[in-house]
């Protein structure tokens, strides 16, 4: 018995850790079914009505819509800009490489409050009122670094001989990029885009400083936390969780099935 215990101690620990990780999520999901009034603090009974009417609480769907719009735009710009930088760093030699690396690293090392506050101060100085577009600008700013790191890692794992083979086989620089490099780096770019979207969607501190009156989902939760977060917010949070989980798991299943199918044909 003790042998089994010592061998599996760490597995037991991992199981406990996972329970710890999921506990608040489970709690949030549970309370999305709560038949509550506005406050949703005490369990009052099971109901589906929140799920059937997720936009029931005022402002919640506007906030969600803004978060999605901002997220989409921020992802688009930061992925393009960050991928370009990643390629420059990963495939070319140029002067100022260490300065570039530093400039990419610094935003990740700066506390969000400093990033948000300094940007707001500058906007105010320039007479620009914070709103939708200032939020997008801020989000792009902090996402670029993460995109660069992600894509750069993928580029580094690319066998440079493949690009040489393409050139050997009559592909110009552009054709090599388009037909060999890009398809092989694409998964990294996709991962970076997903990362950027989640960072943007979930951002609170920087958004709080730079969005003015525009409401985002995290801002909505923050403001309503004083009065009591409505169950609809739980619904949306749980829904986002389930959707994201479903996407990631189905991607895993898909690639595993593909690998198995290819193995069989061998």
């Amino acid at each position, binding site marked *: 018995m003790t042998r089994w215990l010592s061998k599996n101690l760490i597995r037991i620990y991992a199981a406990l850790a996972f329970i710890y990780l999921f506990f608040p999520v489970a709690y949030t999901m549970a309370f999305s079914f709560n038949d509550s009034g506005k406050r949703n603090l005490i369990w009052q009974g099971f109901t589906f009505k929140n799920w059937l009417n997720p936009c029931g609480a005022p402002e919640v769907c506007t906030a969600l819509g803004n978060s999605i719009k901002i997220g989409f735009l921020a992802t688009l710009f930061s992925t393009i800009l960050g991928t370009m930088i990643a390629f420059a760093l990963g495939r070319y030699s140029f002067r100022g490489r260490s300065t570039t690396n530093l400039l990419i690293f610094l935003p990740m090392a700066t506390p969000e409050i400093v990033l948000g506050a300094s940007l707001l101060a500058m906007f105010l100085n320039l007479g620009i009122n914070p709103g939708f577009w200032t939020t997008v600008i801020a989000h792009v700013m902090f996402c670029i670094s993460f995109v660069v790191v992600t894509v750069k890692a993928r580029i580094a794992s690319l066998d440079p001989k493949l690009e040489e083979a393409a050139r050997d*086989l*009559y592909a*110009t620089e552009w054709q090599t990029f388009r037909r060999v490099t890009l398809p092989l780096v694409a998964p990294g770019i996709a991962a970076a885009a997903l990362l950027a979207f989640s960072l943007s969607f979930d951002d609170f501190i920087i958004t709080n400083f730079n969005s003015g009156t525009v409401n985002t989902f995290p801002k909505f939760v923050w403001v309503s936390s004083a009065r009591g977060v409505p169950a609809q917010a739980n619904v949306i949070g749980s829904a986002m969780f389930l959707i994201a989980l479903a996407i990631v798991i189905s991607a895993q299943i898909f690639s595993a099935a593909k690998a198995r199918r290819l*193995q069989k044909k061998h």
Partner: protein
Amino acid sequence: MANHPDAAKTGDLKLSSLTKRFADFLAVDNLDLVIPKGSFFALLGPSGCGKTTTLRMIAGLEEPTSGKIYLGDTDLTDTKSYRRPVNTVFQNYALFPHLTIFENVAFGLRRRGIKDVKEPVEKVLALVELAHLRDRKPTQLSGGQQQRIAVARAIVNRPALLLLDEPLGALDLKLRRQMQIELKWIQTEVGITFVHVTHDQEEAMTMADTIAVMNEGRIEQLGSPADLYENPKTAFVANFLGQSNFIKGTLESTSGADQFVNLQGTRIVIPAARNSSTHKSLLVGIRPEKFRIHNVGDTTTGNKLEGGIVTDISFVGVSTQYQVEMPWKQELMIFEQNDGGAPNLRKGDAVTLSWEPHFTFALDGDEDVTSGLSGADAE
């Protein structure tokens, strides 16, 4: 299409004073070389000798520091790699993992703007006997199959020159032997000039019509496999191809086509044509398989060395290898075929060695006897 190389540009490959210097060292040193059209040519040498760098310069993947590259009458030196009628088979095949086998092979054709790729691709896949794999991805193929696809992908473009960068290195022995024969066959079938880079001397000798042995960025010797093996001009070549026994000697006199050499007290005769030294002090080379080993007192022909004691015997199936210590305290290596011709010997037996004079080669006495030996042997 702008990047369609002119297939009519063909002819001998000529490298003229080709040099490549990297920041801290000289990889290729003023190389002059002519590779005849349609031949199977090998660049042979140890790691770091510059053979791969030379190959990459021919492919256009590396820019020469100075010098020129000509294909027939055309100067290729400044042409980009995708405009040269030259294709490469890479060491680890570099097959595109995201494309099917068919698309891999068709890649070069498509880039050149050829619309109807089906026929040439099918044809070359049939040549390498892998047509049934056309829809698979490279990761699903074995090493040997990937290797053949890499070759197919290159030759489907009918290049003037096919470059092979140690393509058989990753294969096991049996497969390698098989591929050597296949590649040789493909070359004679298709008639393209092959330039094969390798560090494996057996491979080079098996496949190539002509071999250039490279060392430290320079060509040590150029010739047919037999030439290089039987008549090496430097200790490096003698040690790199096969094995050699080197015995110090002094040139005594010349008489017509023969030369008389004092080999540690014994007078031997060697053909003057096989002495590449201009000095009196010589390194006389005899390959182990050229020696015959006899009991003391047996009749011998040719040159003779007496006073040997057997210090080691190894039975290697095809042959028996002897280590014999000579009176001047040097150990010589002798290989005898196990065809019943050699006497039954044991350790400690006294023996006499003989060999035919025309199998001797003589080098300059200043040559480094350890040059060309691989790490452990160069002790």
